[in-house]
């Protein structure tokens, strides 16, 4: 029983991280119909930059996390402006361009940061004995809390602010939003930046637990995409549910079926969703 609870907790932690990373993808898909294949690289950059700032420049860990997320946000704005904007309306080119971008960034990360996985300093140390059932790393518990906090903030942003309203309006009808005075180019740009920043924050949060490597970016992107399809393209609620479901399933699957096939459960879900319910759990029926 305690083992089961431990696997479940593990699943929740990964689920939270999956969810924030996937929220970034979903936000962008929802309003721009663009999948950012370089999403995983943003995650990796988030982790690396926070490491560089904390260890290299000696900035306090929390501040370095924030700075790295901000830096990736700015990078996202630039990518949207120079690379994504010219592809509006041509889905194929946006897919090709972001895929190429992901290869470039992955190799650039390899050159800039080197191949070594890096681990920014933990914010907390040690482990907590959970109800006398099992030991659990404190940093992991903190990650779960941070992920929940970020999800809450994003939900607030989307539901309660003008920016969020304009995002929802654009995702329902881009032209109409413009006809109401929404500068959709600006909203797109900020959303893209925000999508990248979410990936980066997932990376920065997870890095002290699972250090990041440039070669790990592909798996990160794929996980985020699976979550988005599972939850329903553009549905934020779906992202959270999908992220947690995937996190828990992967961990329980790894524990009770096969560790080697840990990552395949996600793709089996993906195929299943596509066959049975292509619009996902919470998506609009197409």
């Amino acid at each position, binding site marked *: 029983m305690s*083992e089961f609870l*431990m*696997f479940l907790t*593990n699943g929740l932690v*990964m689920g939270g991280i999956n969810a924030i990373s996937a929220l970034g993808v979903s936000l962008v898909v929802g309003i721009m119909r663009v999948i950012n294949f370089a999403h995983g690289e943003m995650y990796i950059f988030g982790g690396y930059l926070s490491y560089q700032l904390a*260890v290299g420049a000696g900035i306090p860990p929390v501040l370095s996390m924030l700075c790295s997320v901000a830096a990736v946000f700015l990078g996202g704005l630039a990518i949207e402006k120079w690379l994504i904007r010219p592809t509006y309306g041509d889905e194929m080119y946006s897919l090709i361009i972001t895929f190429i971008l992901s290869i470039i960034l992955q190799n650039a990360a*390899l050159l800039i940061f*080197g*191949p*070594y*996985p*890096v*681990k920014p300093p*933990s914010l907390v*140390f040690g*482990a907590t004995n959970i109800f006398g059932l*099992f*030991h*659990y*790393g404190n940093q*992991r518990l903190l990650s779960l809390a941070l992920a929940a906090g970020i999800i809450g903030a994003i939900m607030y942003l989307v539901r309660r602010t003008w920016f969020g309203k304009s995002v929802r309006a654009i995702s329902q009808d881009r032209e109409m939003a413009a006809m109401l005075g929404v500068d959709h180019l600006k909203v797109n740009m900020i959303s893209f930046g925000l999508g990248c920043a979410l990936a980066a924050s997932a990376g920065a949060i997870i890095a002290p637990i*699972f*250090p990041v*490597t440039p*070669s*790990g970016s592909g798996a990160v992107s794929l996980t985020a995409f699976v979550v988005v399809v599972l939850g329903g393209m553009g549905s934020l609620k779906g992202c959270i549910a999908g992220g947690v479901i995937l996190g828990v399933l992967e*961990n329980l699957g*790894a*524990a009770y079926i096969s*560790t*080697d096939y*840990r990552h395949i459960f996600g793709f089996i879900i993906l195929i299943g969703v596509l066959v049975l319910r292509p619009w996902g759990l919470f998506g609009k029926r197409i």
Partner: protein
Amino acid sequence: MRKLVGVLLGFLVLVWASDPWAADTIKIGVVGPRTGPAAATGKAFEEGIALALDHINASGGVLGKQVEVVFEDTGGVPEKAASGFEKLVTRDQVPIVVGESHSSSALAEIEVANRYKVPFIICEAWHDDITKKNYKWVFRAGPANSGVVDFYIAPFVKDMGFKKVAIVRENSDWGVGIAERTEYNLTKMNIPFVTLKVEREAKDFYTELTKLKAENPEIILAYIYGTGLHFFLAQAHEVGLAPKALVLDGAGPPSLWESFWKNVGDAGELELFISSMHQDVHLTPTSRKFWDDYKKKFGKDPSDYKTRSIYNVLLIAADAINRAKSTNNEAIVDALEKTELEVTTGVVKFGLNPGSYEYHQWMPPMLVVQWQNKKQVVVYPKEAATGVLVRAK
């Protein structure tokens, strides 16, 4: 269509014009991962190559010519390794190739070496089959799984009186091979064990560790290469498995990488690892020279012993060509078989009896080292020990 013809013709001319000119240096090929998950090994190799070239060229080079190294990246991928090896042979036309640190890559490369009849000295790929295939062209001046397990790991486990062993192995040739050999030895010695398989490049081991905890092992033989080992160790502490169960890194270098302490924190204390190098253990004068030269050139102590391994095989290669008095492949193999050269880890002499992995194999002595208060203490074998094994309270 005209443009296609033009482009093709252009290529042909370019390609034709770029064939290698007569060389006034002797080229030695090196294979190893400069990119990919084990790119750290590439860096270690580069340092070793630089030191070896300084050493060889300062003492007159080879056959009166300066030696040059062509370092082909394998990315740790067998396919790239095989094609890289082929490039060294067909394009750079090197008379001999040395290096490699991945068993899987080495197993692909020896096929190419055999096909093109090029002498190949391996330094850090441990799989038995590499020499067990008994290819005439393939030599190994480095550890073999069987040697490491039979002479070091298994006796260590037995002599220290561990009652229950856990084997955790990655899915690579090295991991599979060394785990099988360990199982064989433990069975023979009647020591109970469990084996767990993990993914190469995995980062989260909580599931495996939780399963392992139920088994209550006293020592965990971790056959995981790369930073995966760091995460494994740190997480073993988080779930409360280590240091009650000591962790032995069956490869070595990852426990010495700069990132080790950053990644594992306090969990590094009491960790054990296999090594062929220790600051206070110098088996030959060459070892001392290597250490001093390294400090002079790079301003720090050598950490990854693979730097020294590549240094050794380059010395062996240079020596063999010199004695062969030509770059002819048969002559070099003859010379290699007669090698009796002092390198940093001892005097190299290749086994000559076909039939087992010991053919064309020379096994350097190894050490079991433990981190005690962030200091490396050799705890096994006894004759080299600088301290005693410490267990958790």
